[in-house]
């Protein structure tokens, strides 16, 4: 089938699965099955559709719509193809996972959950392929609303309030995007087609305003600091498989939007756009991971880490846009490629981590890491998958997170060698910030894994936990294999993503791989071979094992001690390092950065408070209207009524008098 037909099949299947799940709402197990299997089939079609255009072809579908100014145009190019593959792949895994996970929500409307989840996936797919501003906004709104209903699914106070903030900020963002599109449409002579936008070439000030509006609008969706406030509240509130989709792919739509407007529609622009994106990326990545480190709620920690990774992606995007603006194809392609690779990788490992967190919460019924501990013994599969995800997100070789960060460093290095002073100045600073982010991420995920899965258990639930059902394990294992595969197969993956980046930028392809090694361009004097690192790590681990084995006969077998050493005191579970105390040194050394958040939170509190005031004021002004306008009118009408009532006294002789009077008056009229 042609790519576009596969795409339509995927969307149709999502729609059918959504409706089927809603209609079968009464019978919960069939609703879960329809939503899960339907979603899986739709995702397979989506993967096939996306993969078939990665090579560089472009497929377009143009159908007339009810509105003469807005054609219904779908366009599959390599960039949207990549996004389509990422969305569909994660949706496939989430669908498998949901087959068991959603049973947790039995009796609370699982049919509706399947409906919104499939609608959410379909909306995301349509957003990335829409090629008309009006339809783009319609699908963008559909995506926001579907995810909003998933956020408030729990219906408790926290979920509703998180959902409200999400709703508010998402629509503020949509407003900025709308304004950007209207400005573009104005420049394109009234057409809302992206094709017309591409051909428009607005003057530089207009283009800059459009870009900044789009950056703010899509940045809100992506969770870019300081527009992130909704994200660490909304993502944890949603059910875990929906959080995986929101953190794994929905926020990437924000990055996609920035690329769409900045690179695809406006064609590059000026250098300060790239510097602006780079600055946002640096600030976002460092601050977000510092905040993540201070969390003890596992899902909030993961949500902040998503913000951090958006920052890393934006560093790549910014570098690419700088390269595009100053016409240095190597820097442009390298930066964009690093960003797209990290976008793909983050979807895989963050999806995995959210599913892992979902599995833990499924058994523990709490998100507080201080109440967990020791789950590696009782949930071995979940533990192993979560560990792979943690190593990947901490950018540790040879897994996938490292490969894309390596390319980000190489892009920054190439930019630092580039011509202009601004590039030479900004890139090494960004690289240093990336290094700090990397070290903090290591600490953050040692803490997350260590507090949940290691050491002694700290609650009764943790003692009694056992492994989650098979579909959930399968979902996690698939993504864990993805982390390993995308890391070790970098020499195969990198050229594909590189060609997508080059096609998006309309620039010549850069050589990214040679044999089993990847490299940043043909002329680079450096390379990286993840397969070789993996082979050496495994082969050299044999050495200590062999040495230990030669002395095996000389020593007694291993034994378990009664308790860890506590200076002669009886150790208890409160002595072990907790999630809070583990991060205490960082809170001490980086106190000013936490102070920023307090200030920012106070500001957002003021905004929330101000909104409350507005509501209260509206309530107070309502009676005012009543008194000034509604009540007098009502009173006047009532008074007239009373006067009229006197006419109808019920006395027969009075009615006779009325008739005689009326006759007399008519007689007088006719005589005149």
């Amino acid at each position, binding site marked *: 089938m042609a790519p576009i037909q596969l795409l339509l099949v995927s969307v149709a299947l999502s729609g059918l699965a959504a409706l089927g799940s809603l209609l079968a709402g009464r019978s919960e197990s069939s609703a879960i099955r329809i939503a899960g299997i339907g979603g899986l089939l739709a995702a397979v079609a989506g993967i096939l559709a996306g993969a078939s255009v990665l090579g560089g072809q472009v497929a377009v579908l143009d159908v007339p719509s009810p509105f003469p100014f807005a054609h219904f145009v779908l366009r599959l190019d390599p960039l949207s193809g990549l996004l389509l593959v990422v969305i569909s792949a994660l949706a496939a895994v989430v669908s498998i996972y949901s087959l068991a996970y959603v049973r947790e929500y039995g009796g609370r409307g699982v049919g509706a959950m399947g409906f919104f989840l499939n609608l959410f996936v379909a909306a995301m797919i349509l957003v990335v392929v829409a090629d008309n501003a009006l339809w783009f906004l319609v699908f963008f709104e559909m995506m926001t609303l579907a995810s909003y209903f998933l956020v408030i699914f729990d219906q408790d106070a926290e979920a509703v309030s998180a959902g409200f903030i999400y709703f508010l900020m998402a629509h503020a963002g949509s407003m900025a995007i709308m304004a950007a599109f209207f400005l573009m449409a104005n420049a394109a002579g009234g057409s809302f087609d992206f094709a017309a936008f591409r051909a428009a070439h607005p003057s530089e000030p207009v283009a800059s305003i459009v870009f900044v509006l789009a950056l703010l609008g899509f940045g809100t969706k992506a969770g870019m600091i300081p527009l992130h406030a909704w994200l660490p509240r909304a993502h944890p509130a949603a059910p875990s498989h929906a959080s995986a989709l929101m953190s794994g792919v929905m926020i990437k739509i924000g990055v996609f939007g920035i690329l769409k407007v900045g690179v695809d529609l406006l064609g590059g622009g000026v250098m300060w756009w790239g510097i602006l994106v780079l600055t946002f990326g640096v600030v976002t990545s460092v601050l977000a991971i510092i905040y993540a480190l201070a969390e003890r709620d596992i899902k909030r920690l993961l949500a902040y880490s998503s913000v951090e990774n958006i920052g890393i992606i934006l560093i790549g995007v910014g570098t690419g846009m700088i390269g595009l603006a100053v016409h240095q194809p190597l820097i442009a392609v390298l930066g964009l490629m690093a960003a797209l690779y990290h976008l793909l990788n983050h979807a895989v490992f963050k999806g995995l981590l959210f599913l892992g967190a979902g599995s833990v919460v499924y058994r523990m019924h709490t998100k507080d890491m201080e109440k967990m501990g020791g789950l590696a013994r009782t949930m071995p599969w979940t533990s192993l998958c979560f560990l792979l995800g943690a*190593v990947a997100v901490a950018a540790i*070789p040879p897994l996938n997170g490292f490969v894309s960060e390596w390319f980000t460093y190489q892009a920054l290095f190439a930019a630092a060698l580039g011509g202009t002073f601004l590039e030479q100045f900004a890139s090494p600073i960004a690289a240093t910030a990336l290094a700090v982010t990397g*070290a903090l991420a290591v600490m953050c995920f*040692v803490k997350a894994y260590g507090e949940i899965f290691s050491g002694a258990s700290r609650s009764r639930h943790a003692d009694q936990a056992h492994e989650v059902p098979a579909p959930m394990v399968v979902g996690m294992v698939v993504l864990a294999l993805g982390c390993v595969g995308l890391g070790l197969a970098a020499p195969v993956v990198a050229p594909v993503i590189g060609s997508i980046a080059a096609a998006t930028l309309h620039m010549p392809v850069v050589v990214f791989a040679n044999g089993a090694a990847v490299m940043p361009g043909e002329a680079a004097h450096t*390379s990286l071979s993840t397969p070789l690192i993996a082979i050496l790590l495994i082969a*050299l681990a044999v050495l200590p094992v062999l040495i230990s084995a030669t*002395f095996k006969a000389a020593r007694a077998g291993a034994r378990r001690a009664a308790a860890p050493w506590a200076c002669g005191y009886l150790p208890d579970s409160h002595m072990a390092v907790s999630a809070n*105390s583990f991060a205490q040194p960082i809170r001490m050394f980086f106190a000013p950065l936490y102070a920023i958040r307090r200030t920012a939170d106070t500001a957002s509190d003021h905004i929330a408070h101000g909104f409350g005031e507005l509501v209260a004021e509206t309530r107070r002004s309502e009676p005012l209207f009543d008194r000034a306008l509604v009540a007098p009118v009502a009173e006047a009408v009532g008074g007239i009524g009373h006067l009229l009532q006197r006419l109808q006294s019920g006395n027969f002789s009075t009615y006779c008098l009325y008739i005689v009077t009326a006759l007399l008056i008519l007689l007088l009229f006719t005589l005149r």
Partner: protein
Amino acid sequence: MPSLSQFLLALVQALLLFAAAPLLSGILRVLRAKIHTRHGPGVLQDYRDILKLMKRQDVRPPAAGFAFRLMPIIMVATLLTIATGLPIFTRATPIAALGDLVTIIYLFALLRFFFSLAGLDSGSSFAGIGASRELTLGVLVEPMMLLSLFVAALLAGSTNVGAIGAAIAAGHIRSVGAVVLAGVAFAFAAYFELSKLPYDMAEAEQELQEGPLTEYSGPSLAFINWAMALKQLVVIAFFLAVFLPFGSATGLSLPALAIGLLVFILKVGLIIALISLVENSVARTRFRLTSQHTWLGVGIASLAFVFYLAGL
């Protein structure tokens, strides 16, 4: 892809470092005793300790899981992998695909990840605090280390460690001031990685009962002690490869390699004499004041960056 001889050289140098690591810690112990004006054990004492520990029973705390058990092996394997990628006796990296500075820094992160995780996994409070400190030091030192290397790499035009060393040895460097300052900053950062006084925060013996090592015993402890010595040697070799590459072999002929080996031994001897002087003349820094020291290092690295921008 590396040729067979390059691959062999990589393995040989890693194994040589592995074999010599206990000697390094032995020499440091002897020097320490000399400075304290006491007799102390011989230079081979650490080999004897390792041999003895190999024959002792492995006792694990009740909460320990697979992270605790696998850590010593992962630690040795990671350090050996780093050692294969560094240019040690030669100017160029034996395996270029392992010799990128970002790769090396992140392989050290792999080490730190499992070292700290094992501390948490043991369930001991001392090990947990040690783990937290180890990672915090990583956060504080990382900017210094990366920025100083980045400046050197910019001057050499490549992020490959061997290429940077070759450019510095050949004198193809635009600004000498920047490279000297970067070298100072990197040496400072590397000193933190040695876990020596005054910065042995994570394994502080008197304060934290050796931190993440508290609960280890038998062969596991032997491998960790061995790996800690190997880490010191690898960090020294990393510094020498980038900032003091003078005298290393430019080709792969045997005489050149022999001279490279000799020069390497001389340079390491000089460095450990310096290390011994520092570690025996200072007291441990208070942990909460460490950030002041690291900020100084970041300051030096930033100065190197400014010198680079100015071309001084």
